[in-house]
């Protein structure tokens, strides 16, 4: 038998096959459009999926770096504003020293000495500023950064560097310690200088009062140096944040290219699939209607 026979089940099976194929195309396009994703599982495109996972991990890291940077910026901003205050206080102490150096009356001297004492207390309060439950200038230590034991001022913190990772391999230290800010590390601390100044003013001794001017300049230098360091750190963090944002944008667009469905293309596929599906259905209904039976009586 060489003629091609059209059998009842044969044509039914092949039509069913064609209808199922068309329905599959439609359902795949529908899933892609509804989810907005081109690849929904690893088998859809294994190598792209690997890259998608890598990009997602990198995005998660940028998110964390942004958190780290924001946290670091808070440390730097707070320390900066506190140290600006310290600069004002020390300048005030210097003015007071200048005034006490000229001839003044006893009552005024006592008042000036009291103000010097309050400047010192203000600076102690600044040195012991707390941030997130810990000393802003105390390194890793929990307690006060600066404390007076008897008549001796001492730095109670440690040399711990509070580090924040703001890029793949960029780590910045966001703290400065009272040790350097207030001259403990340099051997003569600001608080002892102010104690000495207060004592000299009360004693009416002009020479040590004049000598204290150099002390104040030295104290100011320590604070300003730390401020400059903080400013540089702040800049690095800002640059870091810019980089994080830029990198996040790039990663997201790469992820989109890999993962997101091209809507125009998907809709075109859907329409093609629908046309194919409807054609298969129509063909089935037409061909299954015609039969020799209709023409026999």
């Amino acid at each position, binding site marked *: 038998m060489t003629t091609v026979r059209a059998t009842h089940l044969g044509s039914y099976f092949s039509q069913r096959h064609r209808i199922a194929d068309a329905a599959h195309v439609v359902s795949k396009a529908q899933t892609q459009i509804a989810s907005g994703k081109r690849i929904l*599982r*690893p088998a859809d*495109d294994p190598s792209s*999926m690997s890259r998608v996972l890598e990009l*997602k991990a990198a995005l998660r890291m940028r998110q*964390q770096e942004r958190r780290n940077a924001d946290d670091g910026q808070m440390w730097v901003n707070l320390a900066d504003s506190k140290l600006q205050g310290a600069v004002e206080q020390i300048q005030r102490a210097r003015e007071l020293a200048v005034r006490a150096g000229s001839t003044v009356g006893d009552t005024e001297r006592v008042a000036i000495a009291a103000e010097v004492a309050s400047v010192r207390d203000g600076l102690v309060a600044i040195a012991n500023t707390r941030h997130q*439950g*810990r000393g802003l200038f105390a390194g*890793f230590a929990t307690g006060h950064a600066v404390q007076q034991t008897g008549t001796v001022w001492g730095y109670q913190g440690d040399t711990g560097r509070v580090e924040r990772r703001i890029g793949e391999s960029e780590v910045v230290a966001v703290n400065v310690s009272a040790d350097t800010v207030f001259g403990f590390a340099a051997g003569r601390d600001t608080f002892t200088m102010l104690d000495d100044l207060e004592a000299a003013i009360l004693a009416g001794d002009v020479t040590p009062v004049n000598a204290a001017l150099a002390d104040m300049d030295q104290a100011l230098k320590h604070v300003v140096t730390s401020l400059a360091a903080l400013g540089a750190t702040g800049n690095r963090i800002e640059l870091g944040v810019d980089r994080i944002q830029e990198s996040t944008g790039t990663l997201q667009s790469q992820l989109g290219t890999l993962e997101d469905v091209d809507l125009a293309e998907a809709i075109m596929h859907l329409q093609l699939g629908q046309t194919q599906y409807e054609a298969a259905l129509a063909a089935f209904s037409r061909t299954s209607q015609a039969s020799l039976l209709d023409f026999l009586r």
Partner: protein
Amino acid sequence: MSGFVSLRSALSGLYAAQAGLDTASHNVANAGNPAYTRQRVHTVSRAAAATPYGSAGTGVDVVAITRTRNAFLDGRLRSSLAGEGRLETLVGLLDGVEAALAEPNAGVTAALSNLWAAFEDLALDPTDPSARLAVLASLDSVASRFRTIAGAWDASATYAATQMSSSIAEVNGLLDEVARLNTQIGSISSGGPPNDLLDARDRALDRLATLAGVTVTITADGAARVSLDGLALVHDARTSHLSFDPSTGDVSHASGATVRPGGAIGGAHDFLTNELPELRTRLEALVTEFATALNTQHAAGFTSAGAAGGALFTFTPGAAAATLALTVTNPADIAAAASGPPVADYDAGNAQALAGLRNALAAGGGSQTLEGATRAVVTWVGQTLATVDTALASQLTVTAAAQHARNQAHGVGIDEEMVDLITFQRAYEAAARVMTTVDQALDTLINRTGVVGR
């Protein structure tokens, strides 16, 4: 020699037309039965009788009603069915393996990213109890993801073994059926081939191909021989059953030899002996390297109480993914500090170092990061499934073509049967007409002869 011969040949014509009508009716009745093969009536003209004026035809005989079966198309379809059965089973099983990974959104890769972030959050403030709790939760989440995957893969293995053993039970049943049909078919020696028994046997052989990819040969005397790897499963009326060892996934022949079936059983067997062990080895290596890297780095740090950090995870070597468990339950026992004792409260050096493991080449024997190795496992699963999926799609097309070709040859065409019906109806009417004509002729001879002059 006379009209009586013509009556007999007209009668044979009636019988032949009757057989044709019966067969067409049987065909139409089975038009929707996929296992049915269209039947045809074979007729031969009867031996002629010698007469003085030559040989005269004496009618028609129905010699047989046969199936329009084509053994080549059977063979082609059965080998496609075996391939399809194997790939379909593999795709089903690997689908489950892939789903267990829950990538890209809820898998190990996401849990690992969250873990590194949690360590960095802890580094921001190591005294924050909520940051410590978050680290514990993230560690546990990674461990439980690994355990879930191992559990789901074990479930896939159990499912594959169950599928194999029930398919093998079905195969053994089918082998018995084929042997029984062989006996029945052999015992019918006269009256043409037992078409409907042959159809039943072919249906059983198709199913055997789908399940086990067996080889079928039909002997000259019509018995079906079924074999696998050259070992006989059905030899005439004798059967050799297959047996299955769930612990090894091996299938053996009644003779004791191990056989490699194709079809659905072969798919499950491949999964149990190739794909799954490979995946388990990769996962085992990944989990071991992950746990070892974290344990080592954690042990290098100090807890807030000043004690050296112990191991974060325990696991049983050989079943690392299934047994991976977090040993640290107290948030204060996380060794966040890098130096000690005494431990500075805000020392978060080790938390930072633990977060830094993200970039460490701790996996793949020192060639990959942990995330890279995880992605490699995901890609391997995806690649394996995609390959099998593509093969299945093309196999389905091949099977559909083979099925279509066989349906075209074996199936019933309604129009064709209608034409046959009319042909045989007319033949029947014509034979009946011949009888009437002969009857009238005889009537003339018997009743009208010799009445002249009466």
